[in-house]
């Protein structure tokens, strides 16, 4: 799994010192955002906005309020206090549990090239920081890394972050966007649904809140696990959120789907999310919730059992650290 051009991010990685979003290298989605040097053209309403204005507005079109997809660091910049972010477990990389190689699709190669292109080691970035001075653990899924699919590293990074929440009594914010479980890890991908959700139960027992922000697009195994069992579920305006994708549903059922099908607003109307929150209001709402939930009465620590460590299966052994 050799790859060049990637350096492991240190714990004191503080991208917030970079002043503008522009200074971050942002591969734009082909055919989606047209970004010139000075002007941004909205993918939805084609409105031209001066690029500095657009970025100051956290990539929300001022005319039609379209919320463009954000990379992980842009997302954190909208949420946490400047300079407060500390990333953990940044060096974790996916293994290859299935020995996946078929039809020109070789998982370790694909993962390595994705790491180079995206500048990150995995689709989930975890760490902590402060929001208006209040500690908050954050896990952000970055769609630019294999569709933010959930594999072993995604799952393990999330449960380790939850461990940290328990240890330091921090609330948890998960920001999800995902195509679902990672196909290249097969059953290991699927099982991360159970792993992450079961760990959240531990957070719940300790009466620490989990806030889940669903962003565009959020599907499959992520929606059907930790992201949907939060204490508070928020969604970004216009975000597409669901279990099965609309194309699959149309093909399977030949049903005519409503125009707003699977949008954040559709979920709100059907009682599946607490609020649809515009990007610029997110910090304020999160801040209030952290403060109000922090008054929860803390129960005595639950009984902890020391269990024998499970012997790794043959395929796992070579990755044992």
């Amino acid at each position, binding site marked *: *799994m*050799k*790859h060049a051009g990637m350096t*492991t991010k240190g714990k004191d990685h503080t991208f917030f010192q970079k002043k503008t979003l522009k200074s971050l290298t942002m591969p734009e989605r082909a055919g989606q955002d047209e970004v010139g040097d000075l002007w941004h053209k909205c993918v939805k309403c084609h409105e031209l906005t001066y690029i500095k204005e657009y970025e100051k507005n956290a990539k929300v079109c001022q005319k039609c309020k379209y919320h463009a997809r954000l990379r992980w660091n842009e997302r954190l910049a909208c949420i946490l206090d400047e300079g407060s972010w500390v990333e953990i477990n940044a*060096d*974790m*990389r996916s*293994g290859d549990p*299935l020995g996946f*190689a*078929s*039809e020109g*699709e070789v998982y370790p190669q694909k993962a390595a090239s994705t790491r180079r292109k995206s500048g990150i080691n995995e689709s989930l970035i975890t760490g902590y920081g402060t929001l208006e001075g209040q500690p908050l653990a954050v896990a952000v899924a970055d769609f630019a890394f294999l569709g933010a699919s959930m594999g*072993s590293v995604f799952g*393990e990074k999330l*449960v380790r972050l939850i461990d940290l929440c328990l240890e330091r009594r921090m609330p948890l914010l998960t920001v999800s966007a995902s195509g679902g*479980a990672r196909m290249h890890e*097969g*059953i*290991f991908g*699927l099982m*991360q*649904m*159970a*792993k992450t959700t*079961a*760990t*959240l*139960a531990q957070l719940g027992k300790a009466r620490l809140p989990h806030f889940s922000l669903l962003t565009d697009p959020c599907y*499959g195994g992520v*929606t*059907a*696990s*930790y*992201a*949907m*069992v939060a204490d508070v579920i928020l969604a970004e305006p216009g975000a597409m959120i*669901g*279990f*099965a994708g609309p194309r*699959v*549903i149309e093909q*399977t*059922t030949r*049903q005519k*789907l409503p125009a707003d*099908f*699977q949008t954040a607003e559709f*979920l709100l109307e*059907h009682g599946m999310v607490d609020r649809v929150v515009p990007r610029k209001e997110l910090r304020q709402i999160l801040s209030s919730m952290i403060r109000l939930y922090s008054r929860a009465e803390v129960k005595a620590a*639950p*009984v902890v*059992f020391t*269990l024998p460590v*499970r012997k*790794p*299966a*043959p395929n*796992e052994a070579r*990755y044992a650290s």
Partner: protein
Amino acid sequence: MPAKMRGNRSLLPSQARRPLRKPAPALTPPPIEPVTVLPLEVQTIPATSDETSETWKRVQLARHPQRPHTLDYIKRLCTDFVEMHGDRRYGDDQALVGGLAEFEGRSVFVLGQQKGSDTKENIARNFGMPTPEGYRKALRLMEQAEKFGFPLLCFIDTPGAYPGLQSEERSVAQAIAENLLVMSQLRVPIISIVIGEGGSGGALAIGVADRLLMLENSIYSVASPEASASILWRDAAKAPLAAATMKITAPDLLGFGIIDEVVPEPDGGAHTEPALAAQAVREAFSRHLAELEAALAEGDRETAIERMLATRYQKFRSIGVWEEGSAV
């Protein structure tokens, strides 16, 4: 073949005792009737290698229309069964059945996805693809099991949760997620067995168990072979290749340490001798349940339950393969 293969095989006739990975010619399935859930052209794709064709044979056996389904097993395993309907929220889903039953002298809650044996029944059962109501009925029965302290036995047999407008309106994703959360904390022993197809989150939603078993010719995967092929190569016709690549058979999953046991089937598949297949499932359930109950009987009850939950949690918590530290 993994040495971990367990199970009292003496319950099966001698011809059924054979290594799993090297199927005797007898495993060659009998002529397979078209499986109703798939377009026919997918069935006739020639396999490209031995491994692909062997896996695909298992996929076809797992989906065989005459294969015993959840209610067949419940009826053969349980001496009494009272089916319960409805989720008390919206409706009753025929694709996921369950109720209170008697298994070897104890009361248990049983549930599972239910496929049909012919087109008419399959339409009524929605081809074993549950809607949110199915998962919420399952949730209700899980909570019943916990309330009365009865073990929970789950039969997994679904291509996946139903992808449809209504499923999304009432959030099948939320229903699945809630089941994962509740099962991980349910204070009674849970045993799940994949008896046919274990398709994606729709299968896992009743699969967070203390013991996870698979019938010899069942499959368990992150997505159906067709969906996997279409996601990976934008070509659903490559399903047999996807099935082999993604390692979805019972022996594969035993090798990964994901499941606890492969339950043997009669030669030719469970549909050839349903009574024998049910007998093997009974034997496995009986043994695992006895083990779990014995562990619960040790010492203080509350502590024993916490220990069971911690063990269940640790089992799922430890699943994953990764690298750490600076790049190799």
